[in-house]
């Protein structure tokens, strides 16, 4: 958990990076599989995706800064994207890959709205720490 937390702060930044590289690997693997039968099994992709998703979820639970929490959410979405791409490859259908574009668009819109909201909170409260934002409860 501790290292998940530690990794998180940097992890979210290079998520698109890692995701891209993962996709590249999977393409490569599949291209090769056409020729000589070597491929990265689908499970690997799915496991990686699940791990990333879990890291994202833990980040949401453990980080205090709402911006980082939001980045963790983005990590979760991108983890799912990874699954989609891998599964699309598995099924040989374009659907999954198209979905990824939609999800990315949604994530971008979410980022715009989310950062605006966080900014607004910061202006009024001068904090974006999740544990200091509990005016309403019980």
């Amino acid at each position: 958990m501790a290292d998940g937390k530690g990794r998180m702060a940097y992890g979210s930044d290079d998520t698109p990076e890692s995701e891209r590289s993962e996709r590249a690997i999977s393409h490569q693997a599949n291209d090769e599989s056409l020729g000589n039968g070597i491929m990265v099994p689908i499970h690997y992709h799915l496991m990686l995706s699940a791990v990333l998703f879990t890291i994202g979820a833990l980040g949401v639970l453990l980080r205090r800064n709402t911006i980082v929490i939001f980045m963790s959410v983005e990590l979760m979405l991108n983890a799912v994207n990874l699954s989609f791409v891998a599964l699309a490859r598995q099924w040989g259908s374009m659907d999954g890959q198209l979905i990824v574009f939609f999800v990315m668009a949604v994530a971008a819109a979410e980022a715009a709205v989310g950062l605006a909201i966080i900014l607004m909170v910061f202006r009024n409260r001068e904090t974006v720490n999740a544990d200091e934002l509990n005016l309403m409860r019980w």
Partner: protein
Amino acid sequence: MILPEVNWAAVMPSVILTVVGITVLCWELWMKEQDRKYLAWLSLAGVAGAALFSYTLWGRNESAFNGMLALDAYALFFNLIICLATGMTVLMSRHYVENNELPAGEYYALLLFAAVGMMLMAAATDLIVIFLGLETMSMAVYVLTGIRRQNVKANEAALKYFLLGAFASGFFLYGVALVYGVTGSVKLGEVATYISTHFSDGAGSPMLLAGMVLLIVGFGFKVAAAPFHAWAPDVYEGAPTTITAFMAVGVKAAAFASFVRVFLLSFGALHGQWEAILWALAVLTMIVGNLTALVQDNIKRMLAYSSIAHAGYLLVAMVAGGELGGAALMYYLVAYGLMNLGAFAIVVAVGKKGEPNEEFNDYAGLGFRYPGLAMMMTIFMLSLTGIPPLVGFTGKFYVFSAAVKAGYIWLAVIGVLNSVVSAYYYIRVVVTMYMQEGEKQVEPLSTRPALATAIVAATVGTIMVGVLPAKPMALARHSFASLQKPAQTASSTPKKDQAATSTPTATAPSKTPHH
């Protein structure tokens, strides 16, 4: 070679709302301060146009956009519910926006965009379109929640809603991915076909079931079912009251629309797998909602918990399934919409900028100073309690008799006991209004025509739909039946029907009482 099949009729109500929304947004730029009220009327006209268009489409049962959307009575019925919620919200907002100095253009435009998202959700027969509709709706509502920018409660509510909403979207999307992984498609019809051919025993595979659970979690969040309800009270409290009403009715209706469509259509064959989960969710939701509502002192917050409890009753209808359960759910959504919109409209009427008047104490003595307003509030509270012959009673009657008929006798018993408990906190409002002296002389806005229209309309609806429930129920049945016979997946229809109607009576009663 394959050209996309475009069926504009299916999206026409949404297109109308979008165009009107954009017009509202742009028009505000050129408009004088005092002309802002026309924005409300324009939005209302747009909503009315969308509702009328939906009405003229009635009777068509087609699929559109390559099977991504359905144009069926089910979607149109929800279109009407959404138009009702949006229209009433616009009426309530007319003076609220002015009084609270909210940015009118953005406000109405976002309201209409959210309605577009809801309509997409109700009509979507593709998991990704559902996701897009959900996000369209949610993002507009996130912003609306925080539209009172200077209000710290509103800020906080928006932030909480946004973070948790995005978190829940992640789960939903993961669910979609897993279902896609198993079935190779995100189209509801194709998923259903795959499941009924490959899992004809109704058992499913671990990955499919995991996907299904994640979808339940995602939808459970949007409908505010316990244990995914925690956001609801805070967000409902912090949001502008008009938006709270919109969320409580519109968002819930849209989420239930696609929840039911996905689970009865795609996962109908797995009914035996998810009914126990929804059974537990329904019970937990009813209990948590009702018990927590008992100890609230803020009326908005109390109504928030009450709407959680009502999500529980709706889940009961969903578990009951079959034509009766589905129709009961749709009828109950109408009922819930009418009485809740009315109740929130009164909260709007009693509040003012800088003086929200949302505590129980603020309602003390209202019955004597504003007898008409208090009488209508009493009607809404009684209807929410389920006192006949108001619409809340008829709705609960349908829901619980559907549950009883499907053999979920314990679910009905728990539901009945819960609605008995709920009486305490609803009646508390009535007691406060009629039997306590107010220290504060609250001056309602109720004389404003738009708001008064909304309140009176909700009152009339609450009474009339309760006294004459046959027509709306027949409509709901008809609409739900259209869901059972989707145009594009004729082959899977008979199997689905069996799953939805025979499973609950045959296997469920033996299963549920044991745990």
